[in-house]
């Protein structure tokens, strides 16, 4: 079986099975979250932009993937529909960096770490353990999620990092 690589763009969610490989390219302050059930080899990747969905104006129907509070429960539901078991799900998170350092930076402008914190809170509520994490810092990352093994490769071009979590 040759692998097939599918890109998960900003604000998108995709799920699948082997030989599919899901990738989120050039994550900055966004966070890529890979959720996987190794027993049935079903997994999904969400490329999340912001912690919370806006209350006003209400969201349009194609923005489930943009906000952590909606994207993660949606992703979990989709995985369960496709045969995954809630109790076996594990998560790996990548991204949430701060690309620029400003002297007067306020907490508000560090959206990356707010994303990471929001995602951790939601995963905890859903009792999904985080088994791999590569977040923070001041550089962009690409993540490649292999649905055959559940491994996530993290690549940074400028830091010359290439590792598996």
């Amino acid at each position, binding site marked *: 079986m040759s692998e097939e690589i599918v890109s998960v763009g*900003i604000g998108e969610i995709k799920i699948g099975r082997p030989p599919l490989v899901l990738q989120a*390219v*050039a*994550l*900055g*302050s*966004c966070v890529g979250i890979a959720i996987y059930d190794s027993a049935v080899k079903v997994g999904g990747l969400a490329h999340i*932009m*912001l*912690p919370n969905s806006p209350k006003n104006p209400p969201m349009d129907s194609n923005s489930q993937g*943009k906000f952590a509070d909606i994207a993660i429960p949606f992703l979990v539901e989709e995985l369960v529909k496709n045969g995954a078991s809630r109790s076996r799900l594990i998560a790996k998170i990548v991204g949430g*960096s*701060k*690309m*620029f*350092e*400003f*002297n*007067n930076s306020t907490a*508000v*402008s560090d*959206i*990356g770490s*707010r994303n990471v914190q929001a995602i951790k809170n939601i995963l905890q509520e859903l009792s999904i353990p985080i088994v791999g994490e590569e977040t923070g810092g*001041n*550089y*962009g*990352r*690409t993540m490649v999620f292999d649905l055959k093994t559940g491994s996530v490769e993290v690549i940074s*071009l*400028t830091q*010359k990092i290439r590792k598996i979590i």
Partner: protein
Amino acid sequence: MDFNQYIEDERLNIMLRDALQELGNIGVAHSATALSQILNRKVDMSVPRVALVPIEEMYKRISEVPDELVTAIATETVGGGKMDILMVMDEDSTRALLSVLRSGEIPDLANLTELDKEILVEVGNIIILHCVSAVNTFTGLKLYPLPPSIAVDMVNAILEHMLLKDGVYKTHVLSVEVDIFTESSNIKGIVFMFPDHRELDNLMNQLYGEGWDEI
């Protein structure tokens, strides 16, 4: 006024484009003079291509390759209004600019030295200052840019950061695209300004007078 109104209404679009073009011309002319003085050689700049563009378009203007490495210099203004400003150059332009500014071998983007980055920040700072100064002269606003910061990284990671940094997804951006010519090189830089629609309305009100959109 909503950004889409500016784009969809032909008359508004023309008024906005004229205003932005004028701002761009002034900003670029001043930047060229400043760069000539620093480089101690003749620097020409093209007439800038100025537009209010939807975000999807912004990505295309820089690169179709989301993980292409680019040089990005960013800052935000304080004072009369808060606006984020980003200047982006691709690898060829970055190396061409550095080769004008210093001697010796120029590394590829992944291997720039700290000194190279400081040089690039300074050039970015000059260009950004003149763009903001043009906005201020024209509108009477008093925007002051903070000292900029540099990131050399994957283009989408940078754009995404600028779009999301305040926790609100922006839909449109002001784009000023310019070519810089010296005798030996051709450098393309794009400056993006991220106003929200209040700031854009404010800018148009200053330029054309209150109630300009009801004439």
